[in-house]
């Protein structure tokens, strides 16, 4: 994998900073959430205890945070899943910063628009 980078030497190294910021934000989001999900799953499989009555699991963010402190295995898994879900949204936010850094005005506007639409859709769906 590493050897690809030396081959694809680009003309504009500036744009690559943007790509690296976005790629790194995605990678960290995936790695951290996968570790938390795996920890919760192993804990659940070893103890056989979800931390909740049968057929029940947390469905709200405050509840997940409250129960993670008590080491309930389903709450740990859910924390990881929520982080995974948040990763693409975080990626869009990180891209805005990257494009500002790159002084690429059209793309700062484009990416801000995408983030605004994402937030709007979250708000609209909540209202349902």
């Amino acid at each position: 994998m590493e050897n690809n980078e030396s081959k694809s030497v680009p003309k504009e190294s500036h744009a690559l900073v943007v790509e690296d910021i976005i790629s790194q934000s995605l990678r960290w989001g995936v790695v951290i959430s996968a570790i938390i999900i795996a920890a919760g799953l192993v804990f659940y499989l070893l103890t056989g205890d979800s931390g909740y009555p049968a057929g029940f699991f947390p469905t709200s963010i405050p509840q997940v945070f409250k129960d993670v402190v008590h080491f309930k295995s389903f709450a740990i898994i859910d924390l990881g899943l929520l982080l995974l879900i948040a990763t693409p949204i975080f990626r869009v936010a990180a891209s805005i910063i990257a494009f500002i850094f790159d002084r690429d005005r059209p793309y700062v506007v484009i990416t801000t628009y995408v983030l605004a639409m994402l937030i709007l859709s979250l708000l609209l769906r909540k209202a349902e």
Partner: protein
Amino acid sequence: MALLIFTGSILAGIVGALLGLGGGIIIIPVLTLLLNIDIRYAIGASIVSVIATSSGAAAAYIRDRITNIRIGMFLEMATTTGAITGAYLGGLISPHYLYIIFAVVLGYSTLAMFKRRNLELPEGVVAHPLAKKLKLEGSYYDQVLNRQVAYTSTGVYEGFGIMYGAGVISGLLGIGNGIFKVMAMDMFMKLPMKVSTATSNFMIGVTAAASASIYFARGDIHPAIAAPVALGVVIGATLGTRLMVRLRNTTLRKIFVPVLLYVSLQMLLKGLRG
């Protein structure tokens, strides 16, 4: 059980990363047909798998400079706006008609993709005026061809329009829609197949993230099912990205055609049956 879900998800991750799809095409039948899991939880796990494939594969494809971030961002304007329109239209249009319309569009593209099955790289592409202005062009190093491949995009308005439609479907039907995204980039914008699937991978997570939060609140994302799916898909997507750079664009097309055919027939059946 967790092990079976995990293994099936690795496969879904590989296919998802190769083709720029969420992997729901594999996840949903494996969970419902083989493991008898409630369709509700299967769909919830499938949404998680879209995000896991997207983020996992995109991180690698961006590093390998195959994803075109600017094209992805530009087209995400269309998909996110479409998703909101779709959420509004929900009560107005019967999904039957939509399924049939989309089945026809997909059926047509299956044929078009089949005709182009031996095309390694797009030829004679005339750059759209916006392509220069918004940098909807680029180059990547192709390991198979052993050279740097430069490309530009055409049919920007058509591609943008199809992407908007893809967003509307996501909002209405709650599906990943990688298929429409790859199609828009391949058929209308004439990007190399690898760039299309990598860029689609980059995009699908964003629309899925918006719907995932509502699935979570609704209680459709079951931790015991979604956890092995997420982990399996992340591993599969990582393997898939290593495989994809070693495949020919023509091979990718040949894998894509039957998947396209399958999904269009499935949509047609849903539309007719209701």
